[in-house]
């Protein structure tokens, strides 16, 4: 069993605080993704789990054992680096077997386990090559092989796909997911790409400025973002935010939209005030069907074939994105009525915390 548990973990570089107290439980066999904008501390947090960065305060447990002070090679973790970090002077086989050699395994055992890892990753034919003779995807697989062969309890990935081109990234994404199913090991994966996070994760940890914004499954984060940051970070294109006035009424909440339309949301809030209404582009209705209507003018239309993305300027100057059918006829300059379905709307208070979530799974 290899659950990973962090309690009140912090990291300071001198006077600068990078990680500001993280509490997190990752279950055995779970695929957990740390996601956040660059500089949010996600890589540092991963390196602290790996043992490459010291933990300034707090405790780290892996499989129930306290690992806060244990060296990186004794934690039962293996890491795949962003630059792959292969040893350029060693062949693929030597690269994969190096860790076993350093832990004193005999040659036959190393050869057997190297061959098994190579087979799993379709590297059999490349074992005698040097890293310099491999393509990016192959190098990536060698780096993963180097982790697999040590049979770790926990795999750590530090933005492993960021150096690959788009097509290869999609393919490797699938391979890593398959690997996770085959091995059943706990995996922690760092990325700034929310698509990677959404497609691969059992559990997503959204980080910002060294703190956890929200932890949850991909759909939980999509449907029930806890604050404006998570709402804006998860989902592509980004959620639209409108400045509105909201007040509690009998049996719901009344929201005054820009342009004067009134929308009635299900769910109660405590007090009236200026707030932020969140509506995802895919839930906004081009054509005006919905519980309220926003009037605007199309500024830009992106035709993607399967869908069309309209950027619509409202009367008050704010701009919203609307996802519509691929055959939608509107052109830049046209008037557009955008329908707002009340059950898909999120309402955030002045501090950015979610008061109402338009959870469509309900």
């Amino acid at each position, binding site marked *: 069993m290899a659950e990973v548990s962090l309690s009140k973990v912090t990291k300071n570089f001198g006077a600068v605080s990078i990680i500001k107290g993280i509490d997190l439980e990752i279950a055995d066999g779970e695929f957990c993704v740390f996601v956040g904008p660059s500089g949010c501390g996600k890589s540092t947090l991963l390196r602290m789990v*790996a*043992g490459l960065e010291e933990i300034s305060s707090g405790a780290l447990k892996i499989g129930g054992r306290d690992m806060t002070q244990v060296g990186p090679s*004794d934690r039962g973790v293996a*890491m795949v680096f962003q630059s792959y*970090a292969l040893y350029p*002077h060693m062949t693929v086989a030597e690269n994969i077997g190096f860790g076993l050699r*350093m832990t004193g395994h005999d040659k036959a055992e190393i050869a057997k386990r190297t061959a098994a890892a190579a087979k799993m990753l379709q590297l059999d034919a490349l074992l005698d090559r040097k890293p310099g003779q491999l393509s990016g995807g192959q190098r990536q697989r060698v780096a993963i092989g*180097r982790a697999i062969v040590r049979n770790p309890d926990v795999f750590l990935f530090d933005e492993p796909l960021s150096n690959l081109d788009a097509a290869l990234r999609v393919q490797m994404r699938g391979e890593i997911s398959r690997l996770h199913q085959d091995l059943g090991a706990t995996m922690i994966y760092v990325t700034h790409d929310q698509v990677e996070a959404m497609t691969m994760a059992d559990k997503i940890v959204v980080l910002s400025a060294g703190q956890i914004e929200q932890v949850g499954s991909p759909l939980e984060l999509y449907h029930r973002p806890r604050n404006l940051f998570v709402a804006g970070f998860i989902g592509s294109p980004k959620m639209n935010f409108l400045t509105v006035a909201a007040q509690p009424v009998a049996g719901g909440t009344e929201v005054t939209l820009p342009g004067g339309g009134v929308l009635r949301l299900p769910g109660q809030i405590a007090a009236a005030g200026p707030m932020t209404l969140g509506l995802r582009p895919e839930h906004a209705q081009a054509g005006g069907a919905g519980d309220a209507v926003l009037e605007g003018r199309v500024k830009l239309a992106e035709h993607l074939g399967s869908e069309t993305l309209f950027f619509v300027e409202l009367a008050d100057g704010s701009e919203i994105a609307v996802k519509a059918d691929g055959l939608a006829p509107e052109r830049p300059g046209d008037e557009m009525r955008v329908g707002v379905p009340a059950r898909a709307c999120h309402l955030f208070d002045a501090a950015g915390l979610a008061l109402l979530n338009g959870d469509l799974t309900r």
Partner: protein
Amino acid sequence: MPDTAPSAGFWKRNQLRIAPILFLAPGALMFLIYVLIPIVQSVWISFHDWDGLGAKVWIGLGNYAELLDDDTFYVALKNNLIWLALYLLAIPMGLAAALFLNQSVWGIRLYKSLFFFPFVISQVVVGLMFTWFYAPDFGLFSQAIHWLTGAEVAILADERFVTLGIIAAGLWPQTAYCMILYLTGLNNLNPEQIEAARMDNARGWRLLWHVILPQLAPATFIAMVVTVIGALRSFDLVSIMTAGGPYGSSQVLSYFMYEQALSEYGYRMGYGAAIAVVLFLIMMVFITLFIVRMIAQERNR
């Protein structure tokens, strides 16, 4: 193509072929005048008896025959081999210094500069400093030996120690040179690779041996080249510290050559040239090895 002058047309057509030759020409010319022709001339002079002014007298291999009977030649040859072997210590010492200095603490740039300092000062100054350092009556080294053992040692006047004493002086700047080469190499290491090795349980010596040293191979190669060549052409320290003495016991080939051809002992240009040719042949062995290795590396790429 519109009408152009024939010369411009010629230049346009052959530009790609001519340009490299033009760029190479100055260097090639210098190399010819200052390296290749003097080598040929030296070999030619080595077959003559010549005082540098009068007529050359052809004596064939006479100079070489005399050299084989000259005791000083064997002393110089032996000393050159000792130089070669001990001078190579500069490489591990330079590596050790580089590993020690390759850390980020406050003021590390100052320490690096101080370690590099001996390479910047002239060999003549290094020689003088070590001469004083070894001086029997007031030198720090002699004082220390006297204090430790009670014995009086005059390094530079003692046939047993004189060559070792000069080599020690030479190692000081050479170690600094190797250190700089290794520091540059260490700068180019990928830090993620060291971290990967740490996760692979490679620590201390094993990390150095299996991961760091192989990647420093280019630096090691350059350090080898400059150190071997530096050992073979050792001249200035011998000249400053002992002038080959006592009784020629610290002779090396290059100083022996100078002494025979150009010093007050006489102007035996032919004999000096013969020594130069022997030294050149010894150097060629190493230079050939280095070039073969370089070509092999380039092919591997």
